[in-house]
Every structure is written in C-alpha cells, then in structure tokens.
C-alpha cells in the first residue's frame, strides 16, 4: 500500500468572501475507502469537485500517484464521479451509459462488450441492459451510476452523497453492496456524506470537515471514541458535555469540578494539571441508569450520581433516557440485551442512579 497515493497539499478555495476549503492537507492511501464527513456547506463537496476537476483551488496542489493534477481538465484525469442525482444519460440505454467511458478511451469493441457485460453481471443488471434510465428504480439507477464510473477502472472513484436520494431500507442495502463492490474492485473510494452512519460503516478512515477545515482524520472507532473537538464529538453520534476545571490529579486519573454538577472522575489522557479547564464528553450508551445504586465495591472508583428521570424514548433495541442530574440534563442509552418485559421498569420521575467508569469519559478540548 502506497500511502501518498492521493495528496491534497495545502488546498484553499474561496467563493467570493466565503472560504469553502481552508488550507486542507490530506493524504490518502491506494485502495482506501476514504470518507469526507461534515454538515452541508462545510466544503466537502468542493474538495470532491476539485479532485474531479470541476473547480480549481485558489492555492495548493493536488497530486495523484505523484502527478500534479491540479490544473488538468476533468476529461484528462482518471477520476470518475458517482453523482448524487446519478446523472445517467437519459437518451442512452443502460448498456451505452456504461460503455460511454470505454468508447471514449477507444478500446477495441470486443473488450468494451466484455467489460460492460462483466460489470452488468456484477451489479446484477444484465437483464436491464437495453432499458433506458427512466425505466429503472432509484436503487437500480444507483448501481448503474456506480458501474458507469467503475467500468474503465479509474484511479479514484468519487461518490457524492450517493445514497442520499434513496429510502432507508434501500440505503442500508446499498451500503452493504457498496462495501462489497469496493472489496471486489480494490479501487480507491472517496466518499462524501453528511450521514455519520454511512461514513462509519463504510470507511477505512474518515476526515471530519467543518467550515472548510479538517477537524479530525482517523479511523471510525477513533473518531467516535476519541473525538478531537467538541464539534466532532457532537456531530458524530450523541454525547453529553461536562465543562469544568481540573480540581486534582490522582495518578492517571483526575477530578473535574464542573458547573452545576458534582465533581467527575475522568481518565487524564491529556496530562492536564490542576486548574486547567476542560470539556469532557460522555457518550449516552456509556452511562448506565439503574433504580438501585451500583455495588459499593464498584461505587468507590466510578462516577455515581443520584438523579431523576425526565423523558423516556423507547426504541425497541434500546431505551433513551433524559435524566436530571444536578443542573444538567443528561442523555443515557440503555440497550436491551435481555427480555425487557421481565425487568423492573424505570418510568417518569423515578429516582435513579446514573453511573459510568472514569475511563468512559473523553476529554475533547482543553483550554
């Protein structure tokens, strides 16, 4: 695996007064499934369009396999895009849509036929080859769009929110299919989405983008468990923030004195010393909610707070509680791995205990 397969080198792009992409540097490995994740308008699509050749950066360079492609027009880079609206050619059959890039690169006819038929088989669309795009369903169009972009084996495949137009069930199905296709072709995928679930389940690595800057670049688990900023922590999944000041440090752990909440014990992974301010993030599913306090031998080393249930949302797989603890409203998630109806039910206004291990909190920002 070559690590510097695709390089964004200090790329900046402005639209008038707006800086869409602000001095971004990225390095993507060959064969990687790489995601750009961020809210709409964060600059992720602009990054993708610069790689596709549809926008030119104001400064910085883009290299693909060592070649500077910054100024190449779209037709001269072997980078193909799967567009959000598919952009299939309505006047051509599915077969001709897929053969489009092969015909342009002047391959011999038998080779074109072989490769189109082959990829049609891969996406299980052989029997639809002579139909027109408007005769297909959303999911089928999606598969054709992917096949059309993949058939002449580009160096990078760009996917611009490819699942956004599909309904939930189909999206989940396509997610698995996309993953399978990536494994099969071994081409570098660059995936743009605002859906953290898609990014988490597909990507080797994710770049979380906000206001034109990369906030964090890491593997999905790291992004989720060890977010680099308040923005990343809140954008990816749910979380509870506790802001406060380090009161004391005890070995690897520390005590944080928070506003409106009792003191919290946390793992001091940032090696902060007493007096420094910090934001602590605790994911809802890390917080346990019980009617009885945890056993005392456990209770000594963990965070336990008596509190009261305010809101409950039952989701089948889990129940989400909003709990009034101190002055704060804390979200907690309780997965149901056992038959729920046999359990002693927690209900509105119950006095409960919330507790979590100090290791389960993560310091996102020290100030």
């Amino acid at each position, binding site marked *: 695996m070559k690590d510097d397969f695709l390089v964004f080198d200090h790329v900046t792009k402005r639209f008038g007064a707006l800086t869409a992409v602000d001095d971004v540097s990225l390095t993507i490995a060959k064969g990687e499934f790489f995601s750009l994740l961020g809210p709409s308008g964060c600059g992720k699509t602009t990054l993708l369009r610069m790689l*596709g*050749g*549809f926008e030119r950066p104001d400064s910085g360079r883009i290299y693909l396999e060592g070649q500077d492609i910054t100024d190449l*027009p*779209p*037709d001269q880079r072997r*980078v*193909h*895009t799967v*567009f959000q*609206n598919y*952009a*299939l*050619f*309505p*006047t*051509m059959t599915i077969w001709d849509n897929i053969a*489009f*890039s092969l015909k*342009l*690169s002047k391959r011999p006819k038998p080779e074109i*036929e072989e490769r189109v038929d082959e990829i049609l088989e891969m996406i299980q669309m*052989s*029997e639809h*080859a*002579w*139909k027109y795009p408007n005769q297909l369903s959303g999911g089928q169009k999606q598969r054709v769009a992917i096949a*059309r*972009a993949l058939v*002449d084996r580009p160096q990078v495949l760009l996917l611009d929110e490819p699942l956004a137009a599909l309904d939930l069930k189909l999206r989940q199905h396509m997610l698995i299919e996309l993953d399978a296709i990536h494994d099969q072709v071994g081409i570098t995928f660059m995936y743009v989405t605002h859906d953290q679930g898609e990014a988490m389940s597909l990507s080797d690595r994710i770049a979380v983008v906000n206001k034109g800057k990369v906030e964090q670049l890491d593997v999905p688990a790291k992004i989720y468990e060890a977010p680099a900023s308040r923005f990343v922590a809140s954008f990816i999944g749910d979380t509870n923030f506790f802001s406060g000041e380090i009161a004391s440090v005890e070995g690897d752990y520390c005590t944080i004195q928070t506003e409106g909440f009792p003191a919290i014990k946390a793992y001091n992974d940032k090696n902060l010393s007493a007096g420094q301010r910090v934001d602590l993030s605790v994911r809802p599913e890390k917080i346990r909610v019980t009617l009885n306090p945890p056993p005392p031998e456990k209770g000594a080393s963990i965070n336990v707070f008596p509190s009261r249930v305010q809101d409950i949302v039952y989701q089948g797989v889990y129940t989400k509680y909003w709990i009034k603890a101190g002055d704060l409203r804390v979200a907690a998630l309780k997965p149901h791995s056992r038959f729920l109806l046999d359990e002693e039910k927690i209900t509105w206004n119950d006095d409960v205990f919330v507790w979590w291990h100090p290791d389960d909190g993560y310091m996102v920002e020290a100030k």
Partner: protein
Amino acid sequence: MRDVSKSGKAEWLVTMPSFLWLAVFFAVPAVIVLAFTFHGHTANGGVGDWSLSTWRELVDPDYPTIVWKTIRISVEVTFWCILLSLPCAYAIARLPKRWRALVAGAMMLPFWTSFVVRVFAWKTLLHPNGWLQACYLTWLRVCDWAFDWLPAFLQKFLVWAGLASAGHVDPAMSTILDSEAAVVLVSVYSFLPFAIMPLYTAAEKFDFSLLEAARDLGAKNFYAFRRIFMPGVRQGIVSAVLMVFIPAIGSYVIPQMLGGTECVLIGNKIFMRAMQNRNIPHASALATLMAVSVLVPMGVAMWWKHRQEMRDRRRLDVRTAQLMTGGEGQ
C-alpha cells in the same frame, strides 16, 4: 363509466373552439385549394368548370427546377438556423435566471416592427454601395486568393454555402443584393428566433449536470455537447427544424424583395399566377404540388422512424428473452 363519458364530453367542449378554428381556417381552405386544382380558369380571373386542364398546364419544364431550388434554399436556411441557434440556446439556458428572461425578450424585440419593413431595411443594408457589400467583396477576394490552398471539402462547403464562387469570378460582378445569398442571409435572419425559441425551451429543461458527468467520464467539451446535449434537446431540434423549414418553403416576401431575377421561388410563382395572371386554379395546383413534395418525404421519414423504434423494441424483447433462458446473445 359515466364519469369517463362525462369527462369526455367536457374535453370535447374545451377543445371544440380550437377544432372549429382549425376547420374553418385550415381544413376547409385546404380542401377548397385542392378542389380548385381540378378546375379550369376563365379569362376574367374566375374559376372555370371541372377539368384536368390545370394539372396538364403544370407540366412546365421550369417548375421542377423551381421546386427543387425552393427545397434546397429552405434546407440551407434551416441548416444555418439550427447551426446558429444551438449554441445560442445553450448559452441562454446557462445564463443566470434573471438574464435569461431579458435575453429571450430581447430576441422578440424585432417582431415589434413589421416583417416587410425589416426585409426592406435589408435592401438598404445590402445595397451595392453599402458596407455589407464591401465586406462581402473583401471576403470574396480573400476566398479567391486562398481557394486553391483550402482542402477540397472546405472548397465545396464554401461554394455550397454561397460564401465563395466555384470559378475565379470577377468580384465586382458579385453583388449580394438580388442574389440567392441575399435570400439565404435574410431568411436566416428572419427565421432565427423561430429556431432559438423551441431550442431554448428544450435547453432550459436540460439537466446540465449531465455534461459534467460526461466530462467526468473523459469526454471533451464538444463531444459532450454533441453526444449528450444535442440528443437531450432532440425534441427542440425537431420543432426548430419545422418552425424554420415550413415558413422557408412558403416564403415569398424575401425572394421577391431581395432575390431579383436570380432567385425566384415557388412562393413567388404562386403569387405571380394568382395576382398577376389571375389564374387561381394554377396557383392552387402549384401550392398543392409544393405541399405534397414536402409532406411525402416527411411521411416517409416518420414511417421509417416508427419502423426503427419497433425494431429497437423487438431487439430489447429478444435480448431479454435470451437472458431469461440463460442464452448468450448480442
């Protein structure tokens, strides 16, 4: 069932006025014209008894030439109009929305002046002492000088388009006014809005992200324009061709005022027979002849297209059947 018949009745009521209009002002006159062709004419300009004499008179050796010339010039005019209006429509459709309405409106501006007045204005513009004539002469001289070096197909094209003369002709003898070139030029000028409008309407509905997709897949700009944009606005092109070709076929004001003796078209002949010779049946026969010589090829083309479509559909069915039974097929 009752609902269907009710809505059917309502539909009839709504479309009735248009039907009546078409019947009174189109169908009935067309039948009358056709009927006139089977009459003789009287010396004082009236319509005579039933006879085939008019059709016999039509065997004038001049007519096939004139019909052919009319069709040829109409095709030329249509060709230039489409060639010019395609990029125009593309450009207008890509303008910001606010500008589009403005430009489309500006295109309609000439229609505020009478057509005849505008054609007459060209008479002045193309006058032998005018600056357009001077430009044309310069162009001819350049062509004359460069002609032998140009590739053969370009030579043929220039001659065909009336932009160069086949032999080395004295440029001083070549005036634009009272020539075929003037008729083609002013026809293109007059009919261009009729070509741009339907094309622009089609282009406005065209999804321009398709061009980006084509570029992305390796197509050059022009290739994307030709293979994606042009098929995408096919309906607009068909309308534009009809909108230009049909009035061009019947055109007589332009050749009358700018064509001189060199460019007499079927429209002028019909006008002459009807107004000067006072021979209404003869004029009717000419009009019928012209209509038939346009409608028959169009009918054949439509039949051909229909047949092709049916064949495509059959091909799809065969292919699907082959795949269902697991057979290999192309």
